[in-house]
């Protein structure tokens, strides 16, 4: 059963169209991530689901109820804010009780709920403190506790980790995942961080310019992106895009693009591509990790093409090494394990995994 359905949702702020017909649905227990660059409309969408923004047109259903004109408090939702929005003059306990108090839930029921959630999140020692006396991570926990305590139908997270430092962010990400596995509540999670979206979500909606570009499982989003925007946004370092052409010079259809010094690269087309009309202009998308050093293991493998390229910059990160190479005028990033990493200035013999490469139509930007 779907616990959240959004149909053809639109939002205008004056003359500005912020959401241009969004369709999303979340099955019960699902973890949906809304991801996109700032200004893509993801936070507006979340605020509309919460009832904090009005709907211009379209429908929002929570469970089997259309909630377009239902007040936030009656939508059976809970929300965790980027700023945590803890009430500064109340203790943690009062913060957690406030929602139940507003709804007239009996005192002993409130107590039991707070005790349950406090032990779940291990925040019992903090209950008597005020938000000002908590660290960033503790505030984050309390904010989640306040949301959990009411046992709502739908959880909304608005960039909950972006105020934490890098290490804590990774820890809390794991915590949120554990928590979701334990309580199993339907969750909508807004983030601009594609790693958070990939690691947490059961399905990701990638948004750009007020539209959902692709709504699918993380694996599909990553490996079979719907268009150039999704391909470029998901993954870091970003996918390399190379203007190319389909030719059949060597008998088999292949992808051709110019290289430095007047040469051309000729990479055999993978069998999976249906439209292989010769002369067609395409954009070849290769993720950094699909470039590797030629070796007896890689060269013979089906779908593996070979070429070589000069290395401009090498950036070791410890676990892996990024290298910027020149494909003609274009800079292309490759991701290598440290032991096969190139040296600066080397003409690197590359194996390109064409079975994992994506082809896009330069006009429509869509994947072929």
């Amino acid at each position: 059963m779907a616990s959240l359905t959004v149909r053809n949702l639109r939002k205008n702020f004056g003359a500005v169209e912020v959401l241009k017909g969004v369709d999303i649905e979340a099955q019960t227990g699902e973890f949906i991530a809304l991801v996109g660059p700032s200004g893509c409309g993801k936070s507006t969408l979340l605020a509309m689901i919460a009832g904090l923004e009005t709907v211009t047109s379209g429908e929002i259903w929570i469970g089997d109820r259309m909630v377009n004109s239902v007040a936030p408090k009656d939508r059976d939702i809970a929300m965790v804010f980027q700023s945590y929005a803890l009430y500064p003059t109340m203790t943690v306990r009062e913060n957690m009780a406030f929602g139940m108090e507003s709804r007239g839930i009996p005192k002993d029921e409130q107590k039991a709920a707070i005790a349950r959630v406090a032990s779940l999140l291990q925040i019992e020692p903090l209950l008597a403190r005020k938000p000002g006396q908590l660290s960033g991570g503790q505030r984050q926990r309390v904010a989640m506790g306040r949301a959990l305590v009411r046992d709502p139908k739908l959880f909304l997270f608005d960039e909950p980790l972006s105020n934490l430092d890098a290490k804590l962010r990774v820890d809390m990400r794991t915590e949120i995942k554990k928590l979701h596995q334990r309580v199993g509540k339907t969750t909508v999670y807004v983030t601009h961080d594609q790693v958070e979206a990939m690691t947490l979500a059961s399905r990701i909606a990638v948004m750009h310019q007020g539209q959902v570009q692709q709504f699918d499982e993380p694996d599909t989003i990553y490996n079979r992106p719907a268009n150039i925007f999704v391909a470029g946004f998901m993954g870091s370092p970003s996918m390399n895009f190379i203007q190319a052409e389909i030719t059949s010079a060597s008998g088999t259809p292949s992808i051709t693009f110019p290289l430095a010094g007047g040469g051309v690269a000729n990479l055999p087309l993978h069998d999976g591509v249906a439209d292989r009309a010769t002369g067609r202009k395409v954009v070849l998308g290769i993720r950094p990790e699909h470039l590797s050093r030629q070796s007896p293991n890689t060269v013979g493998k089906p779908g593996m093409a070979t070429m070589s390229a000069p290395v401009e910059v090498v950036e070791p990160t410890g676990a892996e090494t990024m290298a910027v190479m020149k494909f003609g005028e274009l800079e292309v990033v490759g991701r290598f394990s440290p032991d096969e990493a190139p040296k600066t200035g080397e003409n690197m013999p590359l194996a390109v995994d064409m079975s994992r490469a994506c082809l896009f139509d330069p006009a429509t930007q869509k994947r072929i």
Partner: protein
Amino acid sequence: MSDATISSAPALDLEAGRAGRRHLISRIVIYGLLTFFAIIYLMPLWVVFFNSFRPLAEISANGLIAFPQSFRLDAWPQAWSEFCIGGQCAGMQRYFWNSIMMVVPATIISTAMGAITGYVLSKWKFRGSEIVFGMMLLGVFMPGQIALLPWAFILGKIGLANSVYGLVLVHCIQGLAFTTLFCRNYFVGIPDDLVKAARIDGAGFWRIFYRIILPISPPILIVTVIWQFTGIWNEYLFGVVLNSGANQPITAALVALSMSGTTVRTYDVMSAAVLIGALPPLLVYFFGGKYFVRGLTQGAIK
């Protein structure tokens, strides 16, 4: 201690010494000037304060500005209950109480209303709310005398002419622009997310106001109360024009200082009367001053 490591060149020491002296001189100049102006500013208060304890004969003999030779409390009870104003020799007390009866409700009501309007104009914006706020701001710059005739007309119509309650009404309305401005500007600094979280938590307009907003707001409420209390207490124009006789507030009654019926000027009693009229705002500043400065300079809580 490793003396060797900090054995600095004597030239540097000299320069540091010179800089230190320059610093000292500039401090002396600054504090000297501040003290000088503080003395000038406090002088009237001292003169009046001393004169309220000096016998009239001594004032006549030694002049208005002099150190007291003797110390008497007589002038104070006289000023409180016998001082003659407008032919009535009942002292300052009833005017004092008039002012109290006016300033307490007017301060409380205008601050409360300003908090509510400021809350609406910052956290529950509606189409045109900025225009409403802009128009209210005009009230801050509007000279009070413009409203004199309209107020006289309205108070007459509703039967509150020459009444302390009439003045309460006048000051509530006249003060609303200021209290709204203060509160609205403070509330704007309170994160909107708090209100959103409370809305999702099921709290309505009033519950958010008194459970979330007000508990964060003591700094600005103190500022507003002090501002209103001293402003209304010291206000003179409305008191003297709209009310007369026994219904005037204390500032208006002090006019009598200049037209006392007797030929002898009772400087001792007059000084005490003036101090009685000035005491409440002085006390408010004395005890609330530091909150006032703190509240004005402090931003809202994150």
